[in-house]
């Protein structure tokens, strides 16, 4: 028997996935940005494998971070505009489950594609082959944290008009630990160290974020959208 809380989670997961599918053009935006922005780097720097190899992992991670930031607003923005967010808040249920469902949908449509595409970009930036697996692993795990923290920022700015830039500003400092350990995982792969080390730290960060963020987001939505 499926418990009520779990079915709410899946309801909202499915709902947001469906909405993302219906707006396919918008949904693949982050992936396209990811590829295009990464392409700029050799054009701006140099096409030589030597110079790209050292920074490839970091560049890919930074671009993934930007791509996530671009799309995370949508977790709550469209629902806020058409009133369904308010409906959700008025309801008697726990907010945590719907929030988790929506954030997971975001990760599935943003973070996971980014992780999957990253080897191609790695190829373009002369990323050494030893780094591919750690890169994908770090992106898959790290973007989950990025989605959760980004959703926190999105919840804070959901009722604002020009929320986008402010969202970037407030979320950036919070992203720093994730990007440090995320790109380090790939870098360790290149340098031959055990990359499962930083990956484990990434996992710890994810655990912390996973527990705290949904609660914080639920609280924020209640506090700031019904005044």
């Amino acid at each position, binding site marked *: 028997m499926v418990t009520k809380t779990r079915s709410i989670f899946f309801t909202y997961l499915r709902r947001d996935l469906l909405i993302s599918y219906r707006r396919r053009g918008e949904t693949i935006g982050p992936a396209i940005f990811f590829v295009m922005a990464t392409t700029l780097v050799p054009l701006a720097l140099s096409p030589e494998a030597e110079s790209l190899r050292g920074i490839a992992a970091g560049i890919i991670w930074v671009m993934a971070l930007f791509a996530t930031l671009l799309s995370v607003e949508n977790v709550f923005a469209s629902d806020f505009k058409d009133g369904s967010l308010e409906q959700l808040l008025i309801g008697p249920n726990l907010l945590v489950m719907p929030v988790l469902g929506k954030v997971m949908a975001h990760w599935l449509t943003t973070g996971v594609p980014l992780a999957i595409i990253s080897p191609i970009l790695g190829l373009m930036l002369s990323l050494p082959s030893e780094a591919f697996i750690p890169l994908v692993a770090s992106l898959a795990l790290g973007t989950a944290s990025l989605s959760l923290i980004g959703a926190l920022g999105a919840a804070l700015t959901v009722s604002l008009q020009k929320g986008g830039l402010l969202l970037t500003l*407030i979320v950036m*400092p919070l992203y720093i630990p994730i990007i440090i350990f995320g790109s380090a995982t790939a870098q360790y792969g290149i340098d031959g160290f055990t990359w499962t080390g930083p990956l484990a730290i990434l996992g710890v960060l994810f655990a912390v974020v996973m527990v705290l963020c949904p609660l914080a987001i639920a609280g924020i939505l209640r506090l*700031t959208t019904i005044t």
Partner: protein
Amino acid sequence: MDWNWFHRMGSPRWFYLVTSRWMPWLSAATLILLVTGLVWGMGFAPEDARQGNSFRIIYLHVPAAFLALAGYFLMAAAGAVGLIWKMKLSYMVMKCAAPIGAALTFVALFTGAVWGKPTWGSYWVWDARVTSMLILFFLYVGVMALRNAFHSQEAGNKASAVLALVGTVNIPIIYKSVDWWFTLHQPSTIKLTSAPTMHPDMFQPLLVMILGFYCFYALALLLSVRVEILKRERKTAWVREIVGEHLTLKDSGLR
């Protein structure tokens, strides 16, 4: 337990009247401590064996950095009190603490940069402390920007209070991460302040400056909060009475 004192503290009027008595003492203490500490540190403390006289900047850099960090926690705590007990006064303190903390963070960054040039050859070094200071600055700016973005003051207060708390949780995490990242790329760790084994002749003026900066922070914060109280409570009789007093003082040429 009698919590009356706590809720009384939340009354802006009570706060204003009580702090009125402290202000002259606080101003005096601030002035004395800062002037003493500065003169002592600039002129009388011995110079550092390795760094020479540029090390004197420590008497500005460390207290500013200290207060910048402490100020953030104070701001977040004020936000928490505001969220939990819905105290208007607490939100006022949070609002006023933000720009003061941001300014002190900037002072810490500037003095740190200027200290770095003669000592380690460059104005900027991406070590853990400096980088964390920079991130602290961004955290401050974020809280201020978020608060100002809302039309409703109440929503703005709540949102920025939550953000301040989230930042508080993050500060140790960010520091640890940046520290790890920096030592990863720089095996020879650079220590930006002289080791804790500082000669007492150098340490005493630093203590004075830290105390002085604490008083300075309190002074700046109280001045700001008191103005804010007058602004918010402008319609009340007690505020108008105080305004009247200020005006008659001015008219009689005592100001």
